[in-house]
């Protein structure tokens, strides 16, 4: 059973409007992919659709992970299967501490593997949490704050990566994790992702900018335009985009007739 996330000809609409018009993409274990493209081309839509947001309607195509058709699964089922989405705009959950939340999430996964599981012990949890927080250079009292409530943009992004570090997914989708981060925060977040990467993790980095790719070296770079992946290449492609922008992509693909 492959741990690759395979997306074939995916079409997604929001409120009847077609956004994704046939996306093809395969992310294998151990690979880091970057998805770039101008605003409004559907990058975040892809992320939400893959995670199963109810407002995003799949009208055609397939997505498979670990032998399962994930489009038939609820968001929590996809998560427990090993998928993770680092949100661009994480929502606040008042009154729920970061620690409490993470412990519940860990326990949800454990219960899936073993219905009789009594949950992770507090000392064990504390140990893991401290470890991960150290990895991301976060003060330990951060765990006592209410999830995303009153967090700065940078704190929110780091909290997303902390969750990823603690939940140890097999596929991680990072939706514009670099937006709103200063260089220092970006470095820390990137080193966190790098530390988690390895042969077991597949990563999809969604971004506008080349900058994060200086710190997280992608194996593959894709460009999205008008709801489809139109260009794929190595990390060189990202550098090329950085220098020349997206216009050449638009010109190149405007010539071709839209495929059915």
């Amino acid at each position, binding site marked *: 059973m492959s741990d690759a996330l395979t997306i074939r000809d995916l079409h997604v609409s929001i409120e009847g409007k077609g956004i994704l018009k046939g996306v093809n993409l395969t992310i294998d274990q151990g690979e880091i992919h970057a998805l770039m493209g101008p605003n409004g081309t559907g990058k975040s839509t892809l992320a939400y659709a893959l995670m*199963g947001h109810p407002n995003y309607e799949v009208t055609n195509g397939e997505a498979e992970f670990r032998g399962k058709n994930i489009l038939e699964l609820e968001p929590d089922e996809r998560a*427990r299967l090993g998928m993770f*989405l680092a949100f661009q705009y*994480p929502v606040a*959950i008042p*009154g*729920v501490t970061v620690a409490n939340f993470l412990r519940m*999430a860990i326990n949800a*996964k454990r219960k899936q593997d073993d219905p009789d599981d009594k949950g992770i012990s507090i000392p064990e949890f504390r140990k893991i949490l401290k470890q991960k927080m150290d990895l991301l250079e976060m003060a330990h009292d951060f765990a006592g704050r209410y999830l995303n409530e009153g967090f700065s943009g940078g704190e929110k992004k780091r909290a997303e990566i902390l969750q990823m570090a603690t939940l140890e997914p097999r596929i991680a989708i990072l939706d514009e994790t670099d937006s709103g981060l200063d260089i220092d925060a970006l470095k820390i977040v990137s080193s966190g992702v790098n530390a988690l990467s390895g042969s077991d993790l597949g990563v999809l980095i969604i971004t506008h900018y080349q900058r994060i790719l200086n710190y997280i070296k992608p194996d593959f770079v894709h460009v999205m335009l008008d709801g489809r992946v139109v260009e794929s290449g190595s990390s060189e492609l990202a550098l090329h985009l950085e220098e020349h922008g997206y216009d050449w992509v638009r010109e190149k693909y405007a010539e071709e007739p839209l495929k059915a």
Partner: protein
Amino acid sequence: MATRSDLEHLEGLDQYKYGFRDPDVSVFKTRKGLDEEVVRQISAMKDEPEWMLEFRLKALKHYQERPMPQWGGDLSKLNLDDIYYYVRPAEQEGRSWDDVPETIKETFDRLGIPEAEQKFLSGVGAQYESEMVYHSVQKHLEEQGVIFKSIENGLQDHVDMFREYFGTVIPITDNKFAALNSAVWSGGSFVYVPPGVKVELPLQAYFRLNVANIGQFERTLIIVDEGAQVHYVEGCTAPTYTTDSFHSGVIEIVVKKNARCRYTTIQNWSTNVYNLVTQRSMVSEGGTMEWVDANLGSKVTMKYPSCYLLGPRAHGEILSMAFAADHQQQDTGGKVIHVAPNTTSKITSKSISKNGGRASYRGLLKVHDGAKNSKSNVVCDALLLDEHSQSDTYPYIEIDENMVTIGHEASVSKVGEDQLFYLMSRGLSEEEAITMVVSGFIEPLVKELPMEYAVEMNRLIQIQMEGSIG
């Protein structure tokens, strides 16, 4: 016919170590319904001084004359003639364990409540093993000069102090049910904390093990002397099963100069109970009163803990939570009356409605002329978990003084779709996600509960969210 006074019997209970009541003790309860004869019987049973009997009779008269309130919860099905107004505590007919509803038993198991305790909470057992703990706590308190007794013992042993304060915080005429309680009160606590004494352990009525404390018409009087401090906890998260369908308690608290009192209630009566309670505190100069009020059970609850801020720099705080599911009505909130200048208050109300439940905030903020520089903030938040449920807000604000700072905020929300998706994207099921949002919603209150209650509270919310509670 009874031969022993209620008082003696309570002391007798303290000597029991294991199990069951003495079968020789005869049963006593008044006949159904309420009239002067019943009240006289009650007073005689308790061997009370004449002035207390007169107090009761005066209260009875007022109760009979006073009309039923036309606001608040729906009391139309409450039949006040079909009630025994006095049953001697130990003789409350032993209920059989078989009669206790399955849902209640399940909840006990889910909350991890030991069996003996389960029986006690269901009114099945006559005894509860915390007695040992109770006695050692008592000894420690006595050494500090703290008085913590049953209300009956309080009257007998400290008659002067009792008479000085009893009925002064909540007069007979306050409302119909205060009058009723004043006529037929039985069971409850009497607490006195001497000047400067800070009681570290919360005093728990629950520990007093008496079935009397689950009495229908319990009456509590707490006096915190100058500079003293005490935290009193009443109730428990486990559903308290009783066939008594009507509970009407009165709690009077006197907070003297620079003293501090916190009164925490966790109410989870079974859903056949009408729960109408009058709670009030008079707070003197520099004193602080905090009410922490969690309402989970009952069929109808009407309860508005109050603070009368009588001296300068007095502070009153009410932190209230109500959870109304399946046609329950929680009509709760609080009242603060600023009489003196430089007084401050805060009311925070969190209500949750689910499955046709109705949770309402009803509160009064009153500032008297002359209460200069008073500050008050009221926050009432409602969370509706589905379209069948209802939440209402009835804030009454009466300000007769110009130089004050008043804030009032109200919000109604449901569990956000984005919140749900976010939590589910971390592997939590939809139910777990909603439960988490609900827990977070009441966190400001749960944070203030003693640790073991907080843990039980969270577990109880989980169970409530599964809709399996009766």
